[in-house]
């Protein structure tokens, strides 16, 4: 009799284990597209068109780019899901990428503005395939050829306070910011993304009105100070990167 109950218990155990093994929660995914753009007064920023910044300067952008790195979603349990390693955002064109991600609840979007030190210091762009934004072709001149590392952000154009109407500004702007000290991390505040077989778009906006505005003692006043190659006038490069990351906001 004991032997019968033992056999019964064994069969129950095996069938129980098997049913556990067979139970697989359905792994579903969602599709998300992440877009990067620059806005002014709530509309898409126009390259080559004169605008007035917070200091009253008339400014025209001819080249406006920055690197974004390690774009990640943070799930509720704190783990991070890397969506994209490197992206060179050029605000004169559309910038987006689409990825499949596991369904779940995500509580933050994290990214870097610039290139992290381990991919920046003493690296060789010729090691990357042309398709990479870190390659010679893909970086489109966003690396310091005479020194080590990448140019994290470029803003080139013209500015002045004197012109009126359609007169073109004349003061050269050449903000080239990029060294390990000017890398900035960004994490979206108040972010909640619940994905269940969804197709979603996340827009990462750059508010140009905040880029050239006072920020906690920072001065990015283009008619006073408009040229930096980071190693010269490093303060402007740091202030520009601070303002750039403060000007980001995420729209779900």
């Amino acid at each position, binding site marked *: 009799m004991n032997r019968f109950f033992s056999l019964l218990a064994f069969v129950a155990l095996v069938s129980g284990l098997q049913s556990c093994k067979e139970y697989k929660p359905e792994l579903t995914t969602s599709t998300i597209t992440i877009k990067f753009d620059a806005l002014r007064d709530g509309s898409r920023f126009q390259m080559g068109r004169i605008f007035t910044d917070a200091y009253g300067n008339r400014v025209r952008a001819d080249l406006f780019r920055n690197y974004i790195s390690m774009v990640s979603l943070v799930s509720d349990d704190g783990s991070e899901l890397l969506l994209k390693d490197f992206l060179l955002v050029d605000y004169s064109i559309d910038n987006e990428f689409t990825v499949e991600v596991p369904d779940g609840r995500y509580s933050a979007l994290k990214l870097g503005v610039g290139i992290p030190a381990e991919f920046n210091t*003493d690296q*060789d*762009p*010729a*090691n990357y395939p*042309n398709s990479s934004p870190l*390659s*010679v*072709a893909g970086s489109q*001149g966003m*690396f*310091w*050829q*005479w*020194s*080590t590392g990448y140019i994290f952000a470029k803003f080139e154009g013209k500015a002045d306070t004197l012109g009126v109407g359609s007169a073109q500004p004349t003061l050269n702007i050449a903000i080239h910011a990029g060294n390990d000290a000017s890398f900035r991390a960004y994490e979206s505040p108040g972010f909640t993304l619940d994905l269940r077989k969804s197709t979603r778009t996340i827009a990462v906006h750059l508010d140009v009105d905040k880029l050239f505005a006072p920020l906690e003692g920072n001065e990015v006043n283009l008619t006073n100070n408009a040229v930096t190659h*980071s*190693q*010269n006038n*490093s303060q402007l490069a740091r202030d520009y990167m601070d303002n750039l990351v403060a000007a980001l906001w995420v729209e779900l």
Partner: protein
Amino acid sequence: MRWGYFILLLSFFSCAETNSPNLHDSEVKVRIPSAFPELVYPADNSPTKLRVELGRRLFYDNRLSQDESLNCGSCHVLSAAFTDGRATSQGLHGSVGKRNAPTLANVAWLKRLMMEGGVPTLETQILVPLHDSTEMAPSMMPIVDRLNEDEYLRALSLVAYGRDSIDPFVVTRALACFQRTFISGDSRYDRSLQGRNDQMNERELRGRDLFFSPRTQCSECHSGVFFTDMNFYNIGLFDEYADRGKARATDRDEDVGRFKTPTLRNIQLTAPYMHDGHMKSLEEVVRFYNAGGTAHRNKDGRIRPLGLTDEEQADLIAFLTTLTDWNFVQNEELLPLGK
């Protein structure tokens, strides 16, 4: 039917033969002077016959400049120990650079490249002139496209580096590979150390003793077999530096005016001197050091008035001329192919 397949296969092979030259690569043993340290090659760029050939072709190829008017050899001329005799080099459309072209002799052993040391390897240094409008081109990608039109270069690229088209990797590796053959260690000074012929005369020996003496301290920075410690110093050239030197890379005030110690090998052939080429002769250079330089805040303490007589200055210069390696500057393997 079987014969049909065979003939078809044969025709494929014969097509391949006509489209690409029959190239075979082999390892190259680079001869290194016995007094020199071992040469450590990058893992992805050990020297082979075809890598060196590709680098040699590219080094002297005008297609490497935007307007096809310049090549690497325009500013790095073998007879001048791979310098160009100008104060600062002339680039595209007559534009003038900011610095004196450095010698490429023994460049394989340099720890950091550029006068401020911002570039870590010879391979990455090659990106510099190819992305500078005052040198060869504002961007190397159109140049790469142009090189890819050359079937023979593509064939070299395939066999030498396993890449069927020229890309920035191939250009930088091949040029670096060729430049690592620029080895200069056969001067009269070297031969006198080895007890070979061409012994130094009395004046040169007096100059040698001065050079290595605590009185001048020349050899403290111009040290070792390469006559450079590869470190960075402010030697008090100016009260204010237009070119900030190492501070360009670090943005630190203490680095203003600090430049990498240049090698003195072949110094007789590499005039004019200093980072901006403003000193025309060795006599002017030695007079400057004898006077002790300006009182710049970052000046190295060893730069001070030396009190050398005219005779002693001439001795020092005589010693410096014994560092010329005439075999190096006449080495036909470093000239364009076919010359």
